[in-house]
């Protein structure tokens, strides 16, 4: 970074963070039961060297997967995939753990019907954000079977021995998935995950409430710093999305930066945003914008598509707009489905994953949640033509080539993550 840090927020706290790691032996002894024995291997690095250390030596650095550093995760001893050819568990309750409104309830009902022979019940529990989800999964007190996650939690899921490797024989429907998602960089050879949906992060608004074309601004992100819209707008309740967006707005491209100067600048900009436009912090833009509680919000590409069904009577859904960088140089990400180790119904969970990859099921789910699955049977060009996405929201279609140029939100080393969290907490404490 060319400019010196304006306010070096992080040095001291970074030091504190590393100081915390010192009494590591004690800490590790305490949580030894939760640590797998080996670190990840793959990506050419030699992290597996600490395998013999176990509880006595500090664990290997978290392996961080990225498009330039694809990772094949290790399979921890004792956590082999389930055997082939097993019958799904009968009379089981399949516990799903997901964001609210991130899966069509009708699809769940269909699944129960499809597996009626086994008397399957599906229970849908929700979290507000991924950190909360990870904390609860790790506490181990609830036997969730399947969760919907993002790859910036992949290393911790594997390290914590929280997820179960997949037996591919149960999941033939993978064949319909886009090529690059059959061997994704975040999980080479899809050992643990199958893709769920892909999305961009951008800006959604109601054209009748915001009389301007946000996308025509020289820097559309500036709208969040525009006091004209104070009290009408919101940003996502997600630290990475907001910090990432702020970095992009200020001309940066590394949304996973560990550079204290960049982060300090982002923090200052976010605080400035608080006082200028008083945004709300929420993921409910998909209902708040249609209902007019908000006029504009940072949101994910599926939000405005699903938002059409929340329009109050008498308002034309075609007033909804969505913008994300049209060249794909914005936040472009995907979520995956995985089977949790603590679940009680691993076979049924495999069946559920396979069911979700079925093209009809996937389409039905897509038309409800508004998030696009990376399936061959659903080409981006056909989506507007086939009426899945209306003309006014054509910007919400995610193009495959954007995964080449877009910026994925990656997992962070713990001490950097702490820095992001500190910024986020300061933001959420208000100004």
């Amino acid at each position, binding site marked *: 970074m060319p400019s010196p840090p304006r306010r070096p927020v992080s040095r001291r706290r970074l030091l504190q963070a590393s100081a915390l790691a010192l009494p590591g032996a004690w800490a590790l002894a305490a949580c030894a039961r939760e640590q797998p024995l080996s670190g990840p291997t793959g990506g050419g690095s030699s992290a597996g060297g600490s395998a013999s250390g176990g509880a006595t030596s500090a664990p290997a650095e978290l392996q961080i997967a990225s498009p330039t550093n694809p990772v094949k995760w290790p399979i921890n001893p004792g956590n082999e995939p389930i055997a082939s050819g097993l019958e799904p568990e009968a009379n089981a309750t399949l*516990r799903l*753990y997901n964001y*609210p*409104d991130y899966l069509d*309830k*009708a699809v769940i009902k269909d699944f129960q019907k499809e597996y009626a022979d086994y008397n399957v019940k599906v*229970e*849908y*529990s*929700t979290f507000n954000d991924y950190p909360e989800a990870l904390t609860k999964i790790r*506490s*181990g*007190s*609830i036997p*969730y079977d399947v969760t919907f996650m993002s790859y910036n939690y992949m290393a911790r899921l594997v390290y914590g021995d929280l997820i179960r490797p997949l037996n591919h024989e149960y999941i033939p429907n993978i064949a319909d998935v886009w090529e690059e998602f059959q061997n994704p960089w975040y999980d080479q050879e899809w050992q643990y995950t199958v893709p769920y949906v892909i999305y961009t992060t951008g800006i959604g608004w109601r054209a009748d409430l915001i009389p301007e074309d946000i996308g025509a601004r020289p820097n559309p992100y500036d709208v969040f710093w525009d006091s004209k819209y104070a009290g009408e707008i919101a940003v996502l309740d997600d630290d990475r999305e907001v910090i990432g967006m702020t970095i992009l707005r200020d001309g940066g491209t590394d949304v996973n930066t560990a550079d204290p100067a960049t982060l300090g600048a982002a923090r200052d900009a976010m605080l400035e945003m608080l006082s200028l436009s008083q945004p709300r912090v*929420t993921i*409910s833009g*998909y*209902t*708040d914008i249609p209902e007019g509680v908000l006029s504009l919000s940072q949101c994910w590409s599926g939000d405005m598509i699903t938002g059409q069904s*929340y329009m*109050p*009577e008498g308002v034309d859904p075609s007033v909804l707009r969505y913008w994300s960088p049209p060249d794909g140089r914005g936040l472009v990400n995907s979520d995956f489905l995985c089977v949790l180790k603590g679940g009680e119904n691993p076979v049924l969970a495999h069946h559920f994953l396979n069911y979700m990859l079925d093209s009809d099921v996937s389409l039905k789910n897509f038309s409800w949640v508004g998030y696009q699955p990376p399936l061959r049977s659903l080409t981006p060009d056909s989506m507007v033509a086939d009426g899945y996405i209306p003309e006014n929201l054509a910007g919400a279609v995610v193009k495959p080539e954007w995964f080449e140029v877009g910026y994925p939100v990656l997992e962070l080393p713990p001490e950097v993550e702490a820095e992001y969290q500190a910024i986020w907490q300061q933001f959420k404490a208000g100004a």
Partner: protein
Amino acid sequence: MTVSAAPAEAILEESRGRRRRRMRGTSEARAYGLGAITAVYLLWALVPVAITVLFSFNEGRSRSTWQGFSLRWYTWDPTGSVLNDESIRNALSYTVLLAVLATIITVPIGVLFALALDRWRGRLPQGANFLALITFVIPEIALAIGLLFMVTYLATPFGLGTWAQVVGLVTFQLSYPIVICRARLLTIGSHYEEAARDLGASALGAVRRIILPMLFPAILVSAILVFADVLDDFVIVRYLSSDASTETTSMRIYQTARAAPTPALNAMATIILVVSALVIVLGWLAYRRWTRKQGESTDVSSLASTL
């Protein structure tokens, strides 16, 4: 600090008649003024809730534009109604289950606690009494987080979920039966029990046959209070819940009120309202019957002042 009443009363007698007439005038005006304030307050307090109930019968999915009367959100909407949305049904039945469990456990423990406090003197019971009162006023979030940490980091025989929630609720509610029963025990005094002992009753028998029946109104009142309060609890049940099967109606309102609610949410809230109203009315009737039979006063204010 108070105006001494006795001399005042003596001096008054003669001047009373003179002043009374004038006073009645201003006093009536004041009564009307205060009455108006009270009426406005009651409107402000209750009308929003009434509107919420009203819109649970809305035909359309709006919660602010009236589109005609219908039971759609109670019964016939195929996916969204209380009857057909399994998660709403679960939340309702689970809320009632929690309230029943918590009440069943809280009240006996609380009564025993109160009896024990009434009998034993000394430092330990005093400390216990102090703790019980502290649980009455401590911010709920403190207890909830403490229990959350305890369940997560200590090896407890129960995990997050129903039992953790019940434990939290019982701990938090315990002060109701303790405070109410102690107050009652103080008014009962010890002579009934002594008389019973003199007539040959055993210590246990005296408690069972004399004290417990006399304590019954207090037990009933505290049970109603605990039950109604648990129905509404939010902080403890949320922190200690595990998954969707341990979700209560208040959690559901919190989660969906700002997301994508339909009038079904209003319908669910209305049903819980009706349940707690029913319990209160039934409890009240039982209380009246009992106290009538015992020839005691049934003033509402005696209930209020125990709070």
